[in-house]
């Protein structure tokens, strides 16, 4: 045992470190530290928000003050001092919102180049890169650039930072914001509603298939800063959009808070595909530093035959608390959840989904794969529920956990609540370790142990990765290997 632990440590010492851990040295403007009504007003004023939104924020803030942080998850969350953090931080250069990519601060462009996020529309349009993805990049508290806006506008798709949408499309924002996740929903949603800074807004009009993938890239850069973004996607009848989300943060010894809210609304025959590759800084081998990722994501499948599909690859964050959910209101509406969660070192994750069946013949499918390594702890927590009205509701759930090493934990807590007789729910779950036979087979053919493990794990998560858009799938596959580095002994 001792020898094994030693090997693990040796290997982890050699392993590649978190490669997005650099800091961009850029002049920023921050709100004073701490949280108060004044800060809420400050943020609102910075964004030139209308009166109703300020009121909405203040209502949420006052509500939050009386709430207690949830403690039901299998997470060990150190007490968070909400006064010891900045709630607004923005690069100075972003003060006057850049009109085109050419106006964006070169230091920021450089940052995103380093992160592998292409912001150069010309190259893509000129065919240097094959597929185009429109990107909205959020740096700390503001969106610094959104690409391909003109091209999207031609198709009638609105894709812009939510702060801009508040100015340009106030009716839409006011109608839908908080309609899926009200500020009263939970502690972190209330906090987000009070202090949210930026995020993306997507509106796809009736009958439009969005001509390209939309993507938002979140980066926390400033020290001691929380990121509270809010994303709202509304897809009208018979429209379709695929949206990707990525995130990274510098390597720091302090923990940083990320509390986002994502709301999706799908109308009749609409479809939303939402993919996330979450790679916030996970902290070091001893669990120092890392992002606290407390996120509320929910979709309302409002129209008949609407469909929402969540795909997530969760590899980062010191602590993850996240349950992307679907409320299936429409007849024959569909919800899907595909998840890969990997925890290593001292990471903790409590993640899963909720599928709430209200509409007749609504269907849902959950495939969740959890991999725990090192001394990490991971929990799948899910709810599948049918109300009395959800005649013919159908769910299939498969959740599998893989354990690597004998010092980690893997837990499964599915809640299955059937409310009418024509409901058909099936759930299966397994927990096991990587089989020695498989490892031996690969090693015998000349792979080293880490390669072999990455191959086996990639096989284990294949069902989920294949749901990702292609370029993300390749990235995710590499990410799986990197996340597991140092986990074999």
């Amino acid at each position, binding site marked *: 045992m001792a020898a094994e632990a030693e090997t693990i440590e040796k290997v982890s010492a050699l392993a590649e470190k978190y490669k997005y851990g650099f800091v961009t040295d850029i002049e920023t403007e921050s709100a004073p530290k701490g949280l108060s009504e004044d800060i809420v007003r400050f943020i609102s004023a910075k964004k030139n928000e209308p009166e109703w939104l300020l009121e909405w924020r203040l209502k949420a803030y006052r509500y939050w003050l009386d709430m207690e942080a949830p403690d*039901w998850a*299998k997470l060990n969350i150190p007490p968070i001092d909400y006064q010891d953090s900045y709630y607004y931080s923005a690069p100075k250069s972003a003060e006057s919102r850049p009109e085109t990519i050419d106006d964006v601060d070169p230091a920021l462009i450089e940052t995103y180049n380093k992160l592998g996020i292409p912001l150069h529309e010309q190259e893509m349009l000129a065919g240097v890169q094959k597929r185009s993805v429109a990107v909205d990049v959020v740096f700390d508290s503001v969106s610094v650039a959104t690409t391909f806006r003109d091209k999207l506008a031609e198709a009638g798709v609105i894709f812009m930072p939510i702060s801009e949408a508040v100015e340009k499309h106030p009716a839409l924002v006011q109608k839908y914001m908080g309609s899926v996740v009200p500020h009263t929903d939970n502690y972190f949603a209330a906090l987000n509603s009070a202090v949210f800074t930026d995020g993306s807004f997507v509106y796809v009009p009736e009958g439009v298939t969005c001509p390209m993938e939309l993507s938002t890239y979140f980066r926390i850069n400033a020290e001691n800063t929380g990121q509270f973004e809010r994303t709202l996607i509304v897809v009208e009848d018979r429209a379709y959009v695929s949206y990707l989300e990525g995130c990274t943060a510098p390597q720091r010894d302090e923990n940083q808070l990320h509390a986002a809210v994502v709301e999706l609304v799908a109308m009749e025959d609409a479809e939303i595909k939402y993919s996330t590759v979450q790679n916030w800084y996970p902290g070091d081998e001893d669990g120092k530093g890392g992002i606290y990722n407390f996120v509320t994501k929910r979709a309302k499948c409002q129209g008949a035959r609407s469909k929402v599909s969540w795909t997530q690859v969760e590899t980062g964050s010191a602590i993850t608390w996240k349950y992307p959910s679907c409320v299936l209101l429409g007849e024959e509406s569909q919800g899907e959840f595909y998840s890969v969660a990997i925890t290593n070192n001292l990471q903790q994750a409590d993640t899963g989904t909720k599928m709430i069946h209200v509409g007749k013949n609504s269907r849902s499918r959950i495939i969740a794969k959890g991999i725990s390594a090192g001394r990490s702890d991971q929990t799948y927590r899910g709810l599948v529920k049918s109300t*009395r009205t959800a*005649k013919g509701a159908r769910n299939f759930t498969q959740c599998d*956990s893989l*354990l*690597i*090493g*004998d*010092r*980690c*934990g*893997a*837990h*499964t*807590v*599915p*809640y*299955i*609540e*059937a*409310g*009418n*007789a*024509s*409901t*058909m*729910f*099936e*759930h*299966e*779950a*397994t*927990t*096991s*370790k990587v089989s020695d036979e498989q490892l031996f087979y690969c090693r015998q053919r000349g792979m080293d142990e880490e390669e072999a493990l990455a191959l086996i794990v990639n096989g284990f998560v294949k069902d989920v990765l294949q749901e990702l858009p292609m370029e993300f799938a390749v990235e995710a596959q590499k990410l799986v290997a990197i996340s597991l580095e140092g986990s074999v002994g």
Partner: protein
Amino acid sequence: MTDVFGAEFLDRLHSTGAVKNPAPFETLRTNGFPNRRVEAWRYTDLAGQLAQTLTPAGLRINQEQSGLFGPNPAVESVEGDALSLLNAAVGGEGFLFEVPEGARLKPVFARFGPMDSNALVNATNRITVGAGAEAVLVERWGQTDESWMNSDTTIDIAEGGHLRRIILVEDGGAGTQTHRTFTTLGENSRYDALVVTLGGALHRIEQHADLTRPGCHAGLSAIVLKRAQEHSDFVTNVRHLAEDTTSDQQVRTVVDDQATAIFQGGIKVAKDSQRIEGDQLSRALMLSDRAQAFTKPELEIFADDVKCSHGATVGDLDEDALFYMRARGVDEAAARALLILAFAREPFEAIELPEAIETMLDSKVQEWPGVSGRFEEMDL
């Protein structure tokens, strides 16, 4: 302290003079009974039970063979939830059943219950199985209207011992039954419990098993048949505390009318408990749109060399199977009865149930609305 859940119930209990042990009573009086915000009680509400005015009474034991059950002196202090505290506060005496080392007992039958309406019976029971001993214990927990039976049973099974327990929690109209069993298993020992719960206003049966030594096995299973507004909460909690231990849980639930059935199944594997196998399968059959079936498996695993699985299904009667039988001349009512019984009985086919329980199950299914017992006479 008026907002303590069940305060008035406890005050009434106190005024009857039934409280013998002040310490657990005070703890209970301070903390109250668990409400639905307590995770383990999220599906079961004791409000109706706590509104009752009940008269404390002793446990009555009817046994077929005399002399096997002795009185068990009540314990004074307990760790456990509010219902164990209630039991300890009243100092409910229960039975003591000891199987000497190496003994092989024929199946032992016993019936427990209050004979009076509105009785509150608390009992603390103890079962010990000596090394290499084998025993089959068939218990029937009966009740009359609006009584509440509440018990804690601790079981110790020594090395190589094997206890099979079949517990029939009987239909008693508006009665409540809350029973908890805490089993500790020694090396290579085995505990198999099958709980059959029928009827009753509220049944909450908890089976806790600690697998403390290598080679032991716990099987915690249940058949749950509920109708009208009956409510059943079956809770298991297996803790694999030693390596090379196995567990198995099979739960079959049938709910009709406005009944509610819950299965909360726990499998915990402690750190360093390697080479573990833990299986769980719960299936629920829902026969009415106003019935509810809740399933909450919970796996908590801290060792890596494990094979744990759980499965859960919820659904209606299989139309194809029904059609198959009808096509072969079985009328619908009989076909339904046969399917319900087969569904409930299937995982336990290998277990020879005592005739009394077999009969009970049959007649319970045959009382079901829309089914009939005629298949018994048919040559299938």
